[in-house]
């Protein structure tokens, strides 16, 4: 039934995430970024609250939350610090899908530092992987899972090095560069699993993009109602007021589209929603910096960081380039918009 009700339990989770964000993440956002890592105590606290394993089955120590709830909770965290979920989660996204296979469960049970990457620029052939991943937002790596159009592969003990250059955003996650030269790659599943893994990564990225953009918009909305130019708050000049109204509308549309895609679970729909969210988030953060003028360009304001963080997020897992392609390739077979059985 067409329904948008947030249950009391969901409300509780969201407020836990929001409180953790406001109290523990936002105040130290810049120091964390500067250090390019999160302190151990914070990592511990985050995981104690259960925020790091929202979607994993209970048997694997997770909370088994439905996908749309995961989206909402991660958005809430990302509003306070867009880097936090990636930097604090013990395992990156993709693991819920992997947990559907025995080999994937074994991997997760090891619970050591790992990541899922889309094998762009990497060739996996005959059980061997070759190529380079320029940047993964992790502090270290015991294993790497690669997904491409044909399947999902596990690479153990990949050769990695901390990225020397400062990434555009998400700096608090740290960052590694991975080079694979004929690394043994064990298959975990075929194209179906790859689609699910990728869908999970896209929902994850989408949630963070939304949270970050929503926060930038909120900051811009507040600032522009206080800042006066030409005799009135700048938010009350129509050119700016309309842009703010459009941003609010676009963010709401993007949120609904992403949560709906999460609830329906069609991989192609998730790809489309991810492409949409990415486009909206990139636009909103840029407009939010613009709304603060020169001040927005300074590290004094969080819109500066949101614009960089969103750009980094937009590049993960193939970004909108790949999700646009996937949405396009499946559009002729997509379920009917209204009235389909699902």
């Amino acid at each position, binding site marked *: *039934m*067409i*329904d*948008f*009700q*947030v*249950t009391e339990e*969901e409300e509780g989770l969201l407020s836990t995430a929001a409180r953790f964000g406001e109290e523990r993440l936002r105040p130290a956002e810049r120091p964390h970024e500067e250090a390019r890592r999160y302190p151990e105590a914070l990592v511990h606290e985050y995981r104690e609250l259960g925020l790091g394993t929202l979607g994993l089955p209970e048997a694997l120590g997770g909370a088994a939350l*439905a996908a*749309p*709830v995961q989206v*909402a909770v991660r958005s809430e965290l990302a509003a306070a610090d867009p880097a936090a979920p990636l930097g604090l989660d013990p395992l990156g996204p993709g693991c819920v899908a992997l947990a559907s296979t025995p080999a994937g469960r074994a991997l997760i049970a090891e619970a050591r530092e790992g990541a899922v990457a889309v094998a762009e620029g990497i060739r996996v052939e005959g059980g061997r992987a070759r190529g380079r991943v320029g940047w993964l937002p992790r502090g270290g790596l015991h294993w790497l899972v690669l997904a491409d159009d044909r399947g999902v592969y596990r690479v153990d003990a990949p050769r990695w090095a901390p990225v020397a250059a400062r990434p555009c955003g998400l700096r608090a996650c740290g960052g590694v560069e991975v080079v694979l030269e004929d690394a043994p790659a064990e298959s975990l599943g075929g194209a179906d699993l790859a689609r699910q893994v990728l869908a999970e990564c896209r929902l994850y990225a989408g949630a963070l993009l939304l949270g970050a953009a929503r926060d930038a918009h909120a900051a811009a*909305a507040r600032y*522009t*109602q206080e800042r006066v130019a030409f005799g*009135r*708050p700048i*938010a*009350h000049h*129509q050119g700016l*007021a*309309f842009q*703010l*109204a*459009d941003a*609010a*509308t*676009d963010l*709401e*549309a*993007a949120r*609904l*589209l992403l*949560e*709906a895609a*999460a*609830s*329906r679970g069609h991989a192609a729909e998730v790809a*489309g*929603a991810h*492409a*949409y969210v990415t486009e909206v988030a990139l636009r909103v953060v840029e407009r939010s910096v613009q709304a603060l003028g020169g001040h927005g360009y300074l590290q004094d304001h969080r819109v500066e960081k949101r614009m960089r963080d969103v750009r980094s997020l937009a590049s993960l897992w193939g970004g909108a380039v790949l999700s*646009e*392609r996937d*949405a*396009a*390739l499946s*559009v*002729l077979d*997509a379920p009917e*918009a*209204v*009235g389909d059985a*699902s």
Partner: protein
Amino acid sequence: MIDTTLDAGFRNVLLIMRQVGRDLLRPAGLEAEATGEPLPVDHPLFVSWNRMGLSLGLAQGRRGGGEAAPGQAPSRMARSAILAAEELAFWDQGALLALPGPGLGGPPIQLLGNEDQRRRFLEEPFRDPERPAWGAYATTESAAGSDVARIRTAARRDGDHYVLHGDKMFITNGARASWVVVFATVDASLGRAGHRAFVVERGTPGFGVGRIEKKMGLTASETAGLFLEDCRVPVENLLGGERGEEAKAGFKTAMATFDLTRPMVAAMAVGIGRSAWERARDLAREAFGAAPYAARELGVLDRLATARRRLDAARLLCWRAAWRMDHHERNTVEASMAKVHAPAAALAATSAALDVCGLAGVVDPRVERCYRDVKVFDIFEGTGEVQRIVLARRLFGYPSEG
């Protein structure tokens, strides 16, 4: 958190409307396209529609304002109305607007009218399904559209009557209506506080029909100019009280109907967009076969996918606005968001559909008509700019006189 499935009840609404749309609206709409004229009042569509005993939910605004007592059970009315609006528009928007009934004139009478007025205007004219009847709603004038405060149609009390003088423009079903709710001013210097609403009945001396407009689209729907020349309207036809304060409070209540009509109108835009989109999708299916695709085909698929997600997002905004109304929660922001977003998404979808169909689309009424029909959705029921002002007021403290 979110559930976008249709339960049996909503599915039923959808299927009924699908049948009505396919069997009645589509053929009538194409007929109007062929003649280039609004559907004549004796078109069989209207009696067929009446016999089905369906309503579009427009007349069901709640008396006494939008808010409800806490704990009141959720309704399904708004969501049903939204589903119906999209589905009927999918088949033909012009014919949908031409359907008999009180139309946009319903809500002000329902909300501001007394019992006698509701009986005379909402019940009696519509009692006999074999004799289709229409109501209409007239605020717009040639020199006053978005800026409603500028209307100049004057109302002057004279004994048991008001004398109305002025002209109205763009009135949907205005020429065929049994009555028109006409907004006029008792004192132009007062702005909106001087406005009063009158039910002007057809045949009242001095009340006449001007031009039937020729439009870009919505051919099946009649858009009329009206004039009032010292037209004497009995006091019993004044809606919502004579005193300024009373009338103002009444209009505020009447404005609450926008909270439903805006998402409905937005949903109609989505329906038109989906109509063109599905036609283009079907043609692409026939033409392209399976992957791998040529470069041009990939470009086409990308256009379809982009249009699809924008439309889907627009639909969700409409649904959410309706869901809030059904749950008796204030939804003015959500309603305006839907109305801002959907017309643009729908226009883009119709244009993308034309891209997909190539030159054949330009002469395919199932595609090019949608492009012409949908443009007006960013104009009527509050332009896109007006919606942004509503949003800016509610969200960013934008001043009211802006």
